[in-house]
């Protein structure tokens, strides 16, 4: 018998340990996260799926440090996000974590180029022009750099947002329903770009989505329901994810229905 050392898993990009998040108190309390344990690998594209109200958005908010956790830990590299103050979290968001929002959230009074460079402007650091040009080329935005957001299509706006998220070379990028406001063509574009930035540029992306097709672009898909992980799929396809979601819905309906049958 040959002993091979078990492969040491590479340290995760971010890790949640016994994460609990409650809104409100007493009988009106909403338990958005019920002791979630999950870790996300570096250099991988992960999708978090689930029905509305499942807590997937809350998970992302707390992982990103945008919202505080009721209890538990979030380990990002060597730091524990739950122990950081607002200023430290803000600096983290500036340098180490990037965001892509569903409604693009570009600053309307700045041009596309200024929007992309905004995190660096806030930091007061000079941009890496090579990296900037690479991003712009990859995302196909060369012709659009001088335009204001209201002069860009939805797909173009989201691409600008992706460039903004990547300009500071963050360790981790969170995307909240990035294709939610886009038509199918633009969606496909955006998802392709996200995948390319993982495969070619070595980024780590965690995407929240309810679209099974979008989840199929990811390397790994997690299904969330009632504040907990209920499924973890290593090689998601649209079909598998749809089935998983349907199964989850069935289960939820069954849980509600027996009350009727019992009568």
């Amino acid at each position, binding site marked *: 018998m040959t002993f091979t050392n078990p492969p040491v898993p590479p340290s995760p990009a971010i890790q949640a340990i016994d994460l609990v998040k409650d809104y409100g108190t007493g009988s009106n309390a909403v338990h958005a996260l019920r002791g979630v344990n999950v870790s996300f690998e570096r250099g991988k594209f992960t999708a978090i799926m689930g029905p509305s109200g499942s807590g997937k*958005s809350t998970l992302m*908010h707390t992982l990103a440090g*945008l*919202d505080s956790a009721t209890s538990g830990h979030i380990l990002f590299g060597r730091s524990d996000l739950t122990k950081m103050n*607002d*200023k430290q979290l*803000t*600096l983290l*968001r*500036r*340098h180490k974590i*990037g*965001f892509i*929002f*569903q*409604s693009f*959230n570009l*600053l*309307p*009074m*700045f041009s596309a180029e200024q929007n992309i460079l*905004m*995190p660096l*402007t*806030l*930091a*007061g650091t000079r941009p890496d022009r090579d990296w900037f040009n690479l991003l712009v080329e990859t995302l196909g935005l060369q012709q659009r750099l001088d335009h204001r957001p*209201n002069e860009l299509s939805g797909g173009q706006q989201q691409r600008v947002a992706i460039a*903004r998220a990547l300009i*500071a070379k963050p360790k981790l990028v969170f995307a*909240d329903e990035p294709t939610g406001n886009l038509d199918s063509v633009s969606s496909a574009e955006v998802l392709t770009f996200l995948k390319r930035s993982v495969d070619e540029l070595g980024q780590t992306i965690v995407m929240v989505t309810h679209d099974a097709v979008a989840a199929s672009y990811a390397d790994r898909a997690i299904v969330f329901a009632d504040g907990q992980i209920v499924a973890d799929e290593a090689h998601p396809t649209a079909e598998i994810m749809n089935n998983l979601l349907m199964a989850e819905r069935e289960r939820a309906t069954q849980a509600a229905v027996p009350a009727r049958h019992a009568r």
Partner: protein
Amino acid sequence: MFSITLKLMKKSAKMLVPAGIAILIGAAFIATTFLFSNTMNDSLIRQQTAVYAGADAMVLTDLPEHPTDAQSDEAYSRTVADYHLDRIRTIDGVEGVRAVTATNIRLSNGNHHATGYAINTGETNLLPVTVIHGDRPVDNREVALPEHIAKQLDLHVGDMVHVSRGNTAESQGSADSIEARVTGLTDDPNNVYAYDGGASILSEDLMAFANGVADFNQVNATSIYLDLDTQTDTAAIKRLLPRYSRLVNRAEADRLAVESLSANGTSVVTIFLLSFGMLAMLVAALVIANTFQVLVAQRRRTLALLRTIGAMKQQLYVSVIIEAAVLGLLASVLGVALGIGLMAALCASGIMASTGMDARLVLSWQVFVVPMAFGMLMTMLASLSSARSATAVTPLEALRPIELTDTRRAGVVRGIVAAILCIGGAALTGFSIWQMRVSITGQDSLVKDHYATVLLMSIGGCAMVFLGLILSAAFWLPLLMRGVGALVALAGPSATVANANIQKNPRRVAATGAALLIGVTLVATIATGATSAKQTMGAALASRYSVDMIAFGADMTDKQATKAAETKGISGSVYMPTTVMTTTMDNGETLHMLVAGVDSAASLHKVMKADLRGVSIDSSHVLLPQRNAASGKELKFNVSDIVLKSSADGDTDNANGADATLTLKPQQSDYRRISSYYDAVAFIDAKYFSDGDLTATGHMLLMRVDADAAGVTLNDVLTNVQQAFSASTGVTVSGPVAERNMWETMINGMMALLVGLIAVAVLIALVGVANTLSLSVIERTRESATLRAIGMTRGQLRRSLAVEALLLALVSGVAGVLLGTLFGWIGSYMVFSLYGTVAFPFDWGGNGLMLGIAAIAALIASIAPARRAVSVPPVVALAEA
């Protein structure tokens, strides 16, 4: 719809607060204006009628509409005897009667003197002043003094005092006086004699003496006061009255006093103050318009929903107007309350009493109705355009996310009107300046006969330019801010964000900036005008006088002069003996001179601002000016010797001058006026006085003033020098410093008043800045959250708001200062060119202070909105629209 409107109002209550404050301030101002004029009227009326004391009836003149000289003479030269007081006293119902006589008297106790006003004694309730200690005079040679005069003369009840005629033109020698006993001290609680500083009460014989007649019955009496009971035989009284007089009862007399006052035009003061109130309201209107614009924009979703479920366009329109009306009403009511509170505090605090006015709070319907009507009207008018845009909301907008920015450009019509105003105004102003310039260089111009028209043209021109600039502010202010902002943006990320935010909504930025521009320009204009006036006046005075300050008098003592010379601020002085002499000119005219003895030319150099090169004081020369100080004509002495005679021809200043004659060689130097009483002031060797050739009839102290170096004000120097000579009544202190001080005090007073009035508008404009900021923050909630999400710290966000506030305030502030300075220069040029070379100062102090205040106010204004902005959690950026 009304209940919905109220609910919507409650929701946006926070947004409406700054607009409410703006109206509140404006309404309070207007209410205070009316209250102030009411109080002044009331106080003046009471002062007028208080002179009647407790009289029930008095006698007034009853002349025909166009009286002849003889008739007027007879009516106004009546004496006490003409009223037959003894017989009136016997009439049924007459409880008391007092003739009304008055005079000026001089009171002396040893070395202390005082002058004052005096009335004759009579029944206590017919005396307009009250006796607070002791008693009123009853027997002969008795007097009651005002309390402060008694203190000044160190007198108490029972002491003796010398009473003499108070004719101030008389000399200060030992005039006739009567010794009288002080029976009591008087007080003037109703400020009847506020101008004279109270009144003494004289016994009848003293009144006769002070009037220069032998008996009280011969004293000129303007009226009599009667104390009557209800059953008086007025007909009998009337029969005893002299011709051209009538008996008037108290109510009638009060009514007549009131009538004469309102005709006098305290309404002019009211109108003047009200115009500032209108200005304040106009600025408030801009603030309100901004607020409602954002209010409607924020509410588009709700309004669209209302439309989807069945609201009509007109209902939405009315809803906005109602909201404006409610806001205007509430804010105006609070403003009126504030105004009443302020006025009541002012009356109670006794500040008014120190000016001699007894202030009472007087409410009238105008105090309530006018501010409220104006407040509501202004608010409703300002909300009209927003109301219209509320009706432009389509039901579909409820269903999609909307862009809240309003990048509408200003209308073309507005631009054209503004351009016409600017060009027309500039042309008008340019023309009047040219006319002025032409007239200064001595040529013919409109200024000679139509100065008022030219002045009006320049004022009108400037006003037109100003109006045009304000109207077109929507065009150039945002451009200016963009320029400055681009520079500021280099300062860091906060500034970059701030600059971008300002570009977002040019109309709102222009409205806010315009509000501030109005106030700042007006203040800068007045400040510049006042500074120019002071400097021009000062320069003109300095060029007309050669000495800063002169003390001159017959009874000046050496000790007093030394004391005055040591006053802080006096940097040099020369004390010289003087006498009055005359000489005959070449053309036969007599020149009246004040001849002063001085040791050497060097001592003259110390104090005189003139070119005295080559001048030497020795026993063979007399130094004379080149021009006659009184007429300005050149003095020509073609002969080598002139003869100076001491004037013994009735000149009051030279009572004991011996008839001295001097023959000296004239040397002339270009020095200007030293004393205004004589044609010229000449200088000779002091030896003539010390040797006894000439007797000094008085002394003169020439002083050089340098208040700034000593760190005191001109006023202090003047007061201290005057005090050094207070013991000698014959010494006058004059000179350009004294005149300049008087001018500066007056100008400063007027400036303070005007600036204070405009400051209200500036205050409202600053409230407008705070308002704009908070509105922007509300609009930008998502963006602020996004910025926070991608790495903007709270501190950076706060700083960006501070920079935004500073940009808004300082760009319009500096523009206002520059405009105001320009207008001030133009105004000064037009008005003061007639008096001398106009100074074009830049009031660094005043303008700097105003900009500093604007900057600090802007920073304070950004605190609350900043707090609101940083309290938005970044999660909001992720929320669905």
